[in-house]
């Protein structure tokens, strides 16, 4: 993947130079499918080689928490442990150890590592719409229980929760009316 050569998504033939950054669609030289290919400077950027940790040379020199024989280069911004060049993971200008990165990703502490969120508001709304006897109280429970739970990363309104509660109350009202009439 480090090669700047790009394949045609249809026929997997290597794309020739004249196809890139053209104003309009250009046919693939192999299969003829029209392509619009925009290349950016990152395509030709050489990937820097990974750093190797240096051994501790002087007595009393700070060493890595995970590799005591290796020299520490930075403290972890999450837990404060000293890290060698191998364990030091740089994320948005902050140094993290692998354990803190894992914790940040699984517990959602580091926002940029969060890769999923459950949508309780949509679940509550779906339950409120579903016309079954037990779904309306469950919808109200879900809405109240997860009212403060983080919603979508892009939409931060409580509108679905509010709508779910209103619909669920209406549904319960209809059920009560039906049972009282029967």
């Amino acid at each position, binding site marked *: *993947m480090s090669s700047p050569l790009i394949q045609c998504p249809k026929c997997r033939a290597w794309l020739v130079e004249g196809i*890139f*950054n053209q104003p309009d669609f250009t046919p693939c030289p192999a299969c003829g499918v029209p392509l619009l*290919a925009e290349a*950016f400077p990152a*395509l*030709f950027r050489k990937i820097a080689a990974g750093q190797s940790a240096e051994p501790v040379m002087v007595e009393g020199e700070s060493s890595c928490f995970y590799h005591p024989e290796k020299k520490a280069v930075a403290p972890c911004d999450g837990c404060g442990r000293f890290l060698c060049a191998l364990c030091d993971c740089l994320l948005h200008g902050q140094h993290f150890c692998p354990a803190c990165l894992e914790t940040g990703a699984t517990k959602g502490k580091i926002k940029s590592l969060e890769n999923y*969120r459950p949508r309780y508001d949509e679940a509550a709304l779906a339950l409120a719409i579903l016309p079954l006897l037990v779904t309306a109280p469950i919808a109200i429970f879900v809405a109240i229980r997860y009212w403060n739970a983080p919603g979508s990363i892009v939409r*931060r309104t409580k509108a679905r929760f509010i709508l779910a509660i209103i619909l669920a109350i209406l549904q319960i009202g209809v059920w009560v009316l039906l049972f009282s009439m029967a």
Partner: protein
Amino acid sequence: MPDIQYKRLTRSRMAPGRLALAVRTRSSLWLGPDHLLRIDAENFRENYKRFYYRDIQAILVQKTDGFRNWNIILGIVVAGLFVLTLSLIASSGARWTSDTIGTVCFFGFIVALFVLILVLHIVAGPTCRTYLRTAVQIEELSSLGRIKMARHALAEIHPFIVAAQGGALSPESVVAQMREWTAPTAPAQAIAPTAPAATVAPTVTPSESVVSDPIVPPRINP
């Protein structure tokens, strides 16, 4: 850490190939300050994938035949239903009962519905598949399924990528850089075939494990 503000780039669109799994998956794109966010929403969960502007190497838009194919299919359906409705009107002649009026209205509604779908399809324009490449992956951006939308999205993303990567590439500079990249590898490729294959291949004794096919697991030769 404060929440990141995102700007919507595309509306959520059904991801192709996911319908068969009976999972309602919808994909949308959002512009962040330093990354492009793809949200795949399935049932009651949102999956996020971030593409940092500094890491985006290329964006490929491949024109597909979906536009033409759907035009043909919808055209045939509309024409068929229209002929059916006309034949109903013709068969009823001068006697218009409430049943006939109801049937004609029903078919008229269905024809109008399909005409509306056809018009919306034509207005949306030709279809495409969009791919985004970084150093480690090639991802399809399924919410960019129309050329018009893909061009608009590309125009929106472009300034962010240029700002993050410190400039844009002209077609000439792409040619020059590709030649520069591929030039040093040429002598190595020329040398490679000169290595005799027979000397490289290990000699296999009867007691050793034999791997004749890379797919088949190694076996002990009796």
